[in-house]
């Protein structure tokens, strides 16, 4: 069966510091991968998606970037965090069908 992992689970970072969040999927190959952010009082917002290694598409302009160095690994990064980057970051995957399956999430607090 397929499993999706995210780490860290929680993170507290100062403004201006770098960020690296990791997502990995097990039990499938060539998945589509997604990064979403869920901010307080707002719905889930799609940030990036990837259909293959090295292929990244961004949905909204922002202070973040994404990379996919391996088939089942998706990384969300920032060079300098802003207060507005705080939120709950979720990684999701699909294996060719429509349904997206979400990971456990990373709670990021920028102080």
């Amino acid at each position, binding site marked *: 069966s397929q499993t999706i992992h995210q780490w860290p689970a929680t993170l507290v970072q100062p403004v201006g510091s770098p960020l690296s969040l990791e997502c990995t999927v097990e039990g499938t190959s060539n998945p589509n991968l997604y990064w979403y952010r869920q901010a307080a009082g707002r*719905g889930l917002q799609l940030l990036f998606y990837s259909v293959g290694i090295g292929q990244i598409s961004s949905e909204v302009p922002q202070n973040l970037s994404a990379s996919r160095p391996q088939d089942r690994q998706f990384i969300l990064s920032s060079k300098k965090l802003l207060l507005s980057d705080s939120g709950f970051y979720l990684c999701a995957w*699909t294996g060719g069908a429509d349904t997206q399956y979400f990971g456990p999430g990373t709670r990021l607090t920028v102080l």
Partner: protein
Amino acid sequence: EDQVTQSPEALRLQEGESSSLNCSYTVSGLRGLFWYRQDPGKGPEFLFTLYSAGEEKEKERLKATLTKKESFLHITAPKPEDSATYLCAVPAYSGGGADGLTFGKGTHLIIQP
């Protein structure tokens, strides 16, 4: 622009008191409507996918239905463990070979014993 609106924002029910949650959408050419359940501090858990008007799907005390403009999540004789935020979403065509989802803000459901 595709939009998804959920109502009510919050709903408090007594155990055993049945009710319905609403999800209305404005999309050009629906390619599926998804329901998820999200517990506090956790990622959304997939519940149902509906593709065409008139379609219904059930899982335990939950039944999802779809019309041309909205979807309902019916909760029959709920239990406290059904307390969660329920999210609906539709695919947002991006043209890049992978569709993200556009989510509503969710309905926060509380079932009191």
